[in-house]
């Protein structure tokens, strides 16, 4: 597991369906305020694949187990849980399992809820590069993070990650039908963040998260797509730090 910083209170960041870049700017920005724990999901970015795993809820339970094993994350009420996109769905599932376990919850463009009007963009219909580019409002930001022509090794990683996503979130695609009914019990103070130009998960999902969770509010980041953390790393880190410092 990658750890960034080391002075601040603990924060766990759960990455996107596409995995995480080598050294995400967002993690460094966040490390000015937190000790950032940034694991790769089982089966993603080269981590061993749990062949048995069938759902995002399985993944959430595995993370709960991991948190219980580590001294830094074991104590209830100390950890800030931050989920990015697909990782936001995992984080939301984790929160429903342990309504009082986390100090703060941050969901950024989180999958997990079925949109009532729009649709969650289906990556199965798009090539690796096209899908990721759709998550950026500004294509220069994509070029900065991945290079204008990502190398083959990156494409292979995206393909492996996509395969793992299919294994656990193929149908229904990218939402849990029962999740909305479980969110109401979560009292953890929650910040829901959405890119104003998210073309992967409709903003209505953010509105629904904010409404369903007992103690949540929605922040919109201008000029950002789905990958807010990659397009606006400093701005997102500031939002999270400010939210975490609220009494």
């Amino acid at each position, binding site marked *: 597991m990658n750890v960034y910083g080391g002075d601040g209170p603990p924060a766990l960041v759960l990455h996107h369906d596409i995995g995480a870049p080598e050294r995400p700017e967002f993690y460094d920005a966040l490390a000015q305020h937190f000790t950032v724990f940034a694991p790769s999901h089982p089966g993603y970015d080269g981590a061993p694949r749990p062949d048995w795993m069938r759902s995002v809820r399985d993944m959430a339970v595995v993370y709960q187990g991991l948190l219980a094993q580590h001294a830094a994350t074991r104590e209830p009420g100390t950890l800030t849980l931050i989920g990015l996109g697909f990782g936001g769905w995992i984080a939301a599932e984790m929160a429903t399992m342990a309504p009082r376990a986390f100090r703060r919850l941050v969901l950024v463009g989180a999958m997990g809820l079925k949109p009532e009007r729009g649709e969650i963009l289906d990556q*199965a219909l798009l090539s690796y590069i096209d899908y990721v580019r759709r998550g950026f409002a500004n294509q220069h930001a994509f070029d900065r993070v991945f290079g204008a022509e990502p190398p083959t090794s990156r494409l292979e990683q995206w393909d*492996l990650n996509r395969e793992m996503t299919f294994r656990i979130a*193929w149908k229904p695609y990218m939402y849990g039908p029962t999740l909305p009914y479980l969110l109401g019990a979560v009292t953890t103070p929650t910040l829901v963040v959405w890119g104003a130009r998210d073309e992967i998960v409709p903003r209505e999902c953010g509105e629904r998260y904010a409404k369903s969770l007992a103690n949540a509010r929605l922040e919109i980041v201008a000029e950002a797509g789905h990958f807010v953390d990659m397009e606006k790393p400093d701005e997102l880190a500031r939002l999270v730090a400010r939210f975490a410092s609220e009494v």
Partner: protein
Amino acid sequence: MHLMYFTEQPMSAYPAQAGLEFGATALMFSNKHFDPVAGSRLYNEYLEHYRIAEEVGFDGIMLNEHHNAPFCMQAKCNVFASILAATTRRVKLVLLGNPLPLAENPVRLAEELAMIDMVSRGRLVSGFVRGGGQEQLATGVNPAYNRERFEEAHELIVKTWTEHGPFRWEGTHYQHRVVNPWALPLQKPHPRVWIPGVLSKETIIWAAKKRYPYIALSTAIDATKKIWELYDKVAAETGYQGGPEYRGYLQRCHVAETEEKAMENARQFMWMQGEFTGLAHPVWSSPSGYFSPAMRTAFVEFAVGRRSNPRGATFDDQIRDQQIVAGTPKTVIPKLRRLLEETRPSILGFWAADGFVSNQDTQTCIRLLGQEVLPALRDIGKELGLWSPFEANAPVSLAHPEPARPAGVDA
């Protein structure tokens, strides 16, 4: 030899320009371009072609299925097999095949196939396939479990055919409280199973381990030889000797009364390969988890346009490599002899026409094949010792090492 007639059942009656503009003619190419009036006419033309194929002497009719694409109108091979079970008398009905992973209920498939076998009086050959990548998307089936579902569904179907019910099935991908269908195949131990394929080594190895014949789909001669090398090696390791009765080949072969006409019509074989219209986006035809991990690097490069299509050989190349054979009966026979001599299959499918080849030209092709080409090939087959599984009384499989025979008929 076992000589079969095959057509993809092309839905050529759609606006090709619309396909060119969209850039693909599969999965997401809108079915607003589908014309059911033309569809009705074409289905009935294809039925007539099958009837003629039986009349002129083909041993079998090979059927397949695809979804969401004009290159193949047949969305369920069991539907055509059912029709042909009742309307033909002699030909084997060779399904190559039912895409097992697409089935949510393999027991239902086992029932349908048993019905086809009984109605046809034991003429079914029940091939199984994994289904194309876009088929997984078209039917909403998870491509990441494609091979697991294929293997488990196969196991369940064979058990349903060969062991008395009721029994219970608690598998990884399929769970059935009660397996006890009141429809069982006429052929015992069960209908023959042939496995077609084109690219994946895993499927060749799987077929060889089961002792099922493998049908190479229009591969180049050198690639076909490599397939048989692998098959024979696995067969030897498994404890039997490979050879012609385990080898099938699907040959694109158009014959006409003149060379010019044959060559002109043979160009239509390129119709579904994207020369005239695009086919599918690579990530539709090979979604993540569907293809062999050994192909990952090559595939992701292909998917973003950094590599050319591995199946994208030009028409001239395919004529040279004999992946496409075209001419008059007189000129195609020596070419087919070369295929038989070099790769020694005993099962040969003739994919006779594609795309926009007219009804009349297709009928002429089938008649010329039946009257002039098939008799010559039968002689060559005898000369080369290419005995089909039926002629060789080959076992149905490793697990069921007897030849398939209709129940109630003395051997």
